[in-house]
Structures are given as C-alpha cells and as structure tokens.
C-alpha cells in the first residue's frame, strides 16, 4: 500500500529544473533507497517532500495517505508523521541533547530519552546533558538526530546520507536504527550513494539529472554501483 506518492513532481530553482516530472510511490512500512550521482537531485527530493523553505513551489503534487500535502508547512507535514534526517545535522549552542530529543516527543520521559540514545549506541550518562554544539563530532550529531527520529516515531522518514561522517563501528548502530524504525512501523527512505546503505533497503530508485531513470529491486540497481550507470541524458546539475 502506498503511503506517500509523488505525481509528476517538478521543481525549478534559479531557472534550472532540478526535479523533472518525478513519479514515485513509497510503500508503507518498507525501506526504500534513492540513489544517484552527486547533484542528481536526491537531497532536493527529500527537502521538497519535507516542504523546506525554497522547495515549496512545485509542479505536480505530493500525496500522503491519499491527501495532497503540497500546500502544508513543514510543521504540518511533520505533525502528519513525515520527518527528515539531514546529511549534516544542525548544531545548537546551549541546547542539551535531552531537550533536543524531547522536542521531538513532548510526552516522552527521561528514561525514554535515554533509551533512544542507547539504541544508537550512545551512553546516556555521557550525552543527555551535553550541548548539541560544536563540541560534538558530525558522527555523534548524526546518531543523536537518529535518536530523536526514533523518539518521534514517524510514519515516513527520509534519512539523507545516513552513513555520512560515521565510522565503521558506528555504522552498524545506524543500520540497527534503520531496522528499528522499520520495526516501529515507519516507512524509511534512504538517500544515499553507498552500496552498503542501499542494501539495507527493499526497493530503490535511481535518480539522474532530476529524473527517475530506473526503479525496482535492489539487485536490479546494483549495476549502477559497478560503474554501469544506466543510459540516460545525464545532466549533473548541482543541488
């Protein structure tokens, strides 16, 4: 069953078409991967689904649980259960990890906050009261962001380059987090150009030049990672 559907979705920024007539159905409670070269439009697709500032004036439509969300704000989309994990998570001077996670799930107890940190491999005693600022590495912030997403229990979550800045040992925790999201009932979209990350998905979409050029089972898209990119009119337009 489709939970989120993109219908003839196009986005033009500064006179350039970044997303070009995209049609994708994301299946409920499945893990999907969106792959493609740098500048293909993968992150732009996630920002557009989330409705971030500058990514709202689209052609076509976005349907979530059968209803158009095209005109909804970021908050309204989030309240419906859509969320996004950034490739490089934001830093917040003074804001504690605990407060940040509680912002995602207001009714959460402190024990549940700690539990979400344990799930991503972070020691709550070390991290709960720390500020989410420059004293944390990109990988630590990435795991804290994933903890906050787990706490939110979203219906539909997009993770932009979930392995970015993550060391090999921590990558397993990120993968466990993705598995937990699925077990919680979330539909997961992994934006990636990593074969290891793509293999955690059940279906994949190959985007190139803002267009979906291939879709299907993971095995079908594996040749892309063997430098056998499928023939397309490749216009590498930076996001």
């Amino acid at each position, binding site marked *: 069953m489709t939970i989120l559907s993109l219908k003839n979705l196009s986005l033009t920024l500064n006179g350039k078409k970044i997303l070009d007539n995209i049609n994708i159905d994301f299946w409920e409670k499945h893990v999907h991967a969106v792959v493609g070269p740098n500048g293909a439009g993968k992150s732009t697709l996630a920002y557009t689904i*989330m409705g*971030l*500032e500058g990514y709202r004036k689209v052609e076509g439509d976005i349907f979530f649980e059968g209803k158009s969300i095209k005109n909804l*704000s*970021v*908050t309204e*989309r*989030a*309240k419906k259960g*859509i*969320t*996004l994990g*950034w490739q490089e*998570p*934001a*830093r*917040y*001077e*003074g*804001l*504690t990890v605990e*407060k940040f996670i509680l*912002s*995602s799930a207001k009714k959460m107890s402190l024990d549940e906050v700690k539990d979400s940190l344990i799930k991503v491999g972070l020691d709550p005693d070390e991290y709960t009261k720390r*500020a*989410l600022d420059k004293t944390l590495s990109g990988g630590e912030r990435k795991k804290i*962001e994933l903890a*906050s997403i787990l706490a*939110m229990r979203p219906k539909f979550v997009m993770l932009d380059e979930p392995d970015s800045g993550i060391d090999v040992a921590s990558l397993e925790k990120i993968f466990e987090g993705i598995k937990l999201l699925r077990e919680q009932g979330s539909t997961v979209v992994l934006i990636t150009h990593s074969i290891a990350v793509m293999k955690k998905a059940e279906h994949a979409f190959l985007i190139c030049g803002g267009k979906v050029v291939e879709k299907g089972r993971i095995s079908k898209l594996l040749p892309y990672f063997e430098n056998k990119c499928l023939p397309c009119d490749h216009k590498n337009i930076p996001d």
Partner: protein
Amino acid sequence: MEVDDLLKLIRGDLFLQDKKTAHLTINLNKVLSKNLVPGLHVDTKENKDGVDVKIKVDDNIRIKNKVHLCFGITKEKAIQKINMDVDVGKNAKISILSHCIFPKAVNIKHIMDAKIKIDEGSIYTYEEKHIHSMDGNIEVYPKAFVEVGKKSRFKTEFELIKGRVGKLDIDYEITGEKNSVIEMTSKVSGKSDDIIKIKEVGNLVGENAKGVLKSRIAVRDNASAEVYNTIVATAPYARGHVDCKEIIQDNGVARAIPIVEVKHPKAHVTHEAAIGSVDTKQLETLMARGLNEEEAVEVIIEGLLS
C-alpha cells in the same frame, strides 16, 4: 510580594538555613540577614539609597559552598545603589551567586558599583542572575573595575532572561596580570522596547594572560542591543577572544562592536560576531519534528541563553 516570597523565588529558603553557606540578603537599603563562614568577612553600611558592602576573603581560604548575595527591591518604585568592595587574598577561592530580584518593579533603578581585587593565585567566580517583573520601567547599571592578580582567575556570568530587561547598561573593565585568566559571559533576552548596552574591556597586561569576552543576546519586538567588547593585549603570549552572538526577531535591532587591540608582536587576539535571525537549518530541523516556528525559535533561544 514580601521578602519571604522573594526568597522562595530563588530557593533562598534552602541556603538561608544552611549555616555552612554564607549569604547576605539586602532589601532596598536594609540588610535583612547575613551568615558568614570562616575566612570570609562581610561588612555592610546602610545608606539612604542602598548599602556599602565590603567583602574580604583571607589568604589561603578556599570557600567550599557558593556564597549567596540577594539584592532585592519589593517596592514598586525605588533606587538601590550597592557599592561593593571585594578583596580576595592570596591563594584564596570564592564563588558568589548574586540574585537581583525586582518582581514588582514599576519604576526601579538598581546601580551596582564594584571594585574587585583578586590577589595572586586566587579564583573569583561571580554569577549575577536577575529576575524582573514584566513591567519595563526598570534600569540596571552594573559597573565594575576588576584587578586580576598573577596566576589568578576571574570568571563572571551575567544573566537577565526572566521578565523585562527595561534598560540595562553594563560597564566592566578588567585588567589581567601575568598568567591570569579572565572569562566574562553576558546572557540577556530583550523584548518590547528594552534597551541593552554592554561595554566590557579586558586588558591583558601580563605575560601569558588570557581573556574571553562572550555575549549571547536575543532581542525581539522593538528591543535593541549594543555590545562593545574590547580586548587589549600588551604583553607577550597574551591570548584573547571576543565572541558575540545576537539573535534578532520582529523589529529588534542589534549591534556588535568588537575591538581587538594588540600591542605586542607575540600577543594574539581574535574575535567573532554573528547577528541575525535564527539559523534556518536549526529551525527547520525542529519544525520537521513537529514544533511550530514560534516554539522552535523559543527552544533555540532558550538553548543559546541557557
């Protein structure tokens, strides 16, 4: 609201009863209570508009618990002038938490004039936390002249994030000797037509002296803020940094003027200043978790000023 209520606001009921914790409580120009610990001397003289306070810490005395100073005004209209004279002896340590509480302020002026001398090898920490009413007719003038001796540390944090600021005019000048450390932080949240002015000068005159002046300001509505932070380094290996961050919303106006002056080729001073609205990625991350824009801004500002 009377004095008892005022003390409850800051959990003063806890420290007032602890004989091992020194405190001094002043309402307008009256000393209400005082408790001292060995090695700490506090003399007071009541005046028409306030109180003269002399604080002396003996040599080699390291006071374990924070010393609480409570300067309150429970009247709606008044002027309170506190003249502070602080003398911290050699190899001593004192940490002061000063509560300035004006919960009923309609027309209040609070003037603090401090002279602080920290002798060699000592640590002096001073936190000043204000709680104001939501009425804006309050004026606060904290002024201090500080001498930080060799191998000594002076750390201060000024916080005014509850209630209206009214008019705030901070004027601090600190001089650091050889191997001394100066750390000053100001956190202020202005709203309505509040006026914030912060002037801090750090003079690093001794070899290897270090200084950081840090300001975190949020202004909204028609509030305005001006931050003048200066570090002057005149000795070899002196290191200084000026760091100012101001968030503005609505019609708020913020200005930051960091001045760094280096008068020795082996000294080094840096500065950074950022003024603007809330960072978009910070905002959108929280909004993508379901907070509306106003709630997200509150969380970000609360963090910045925490």
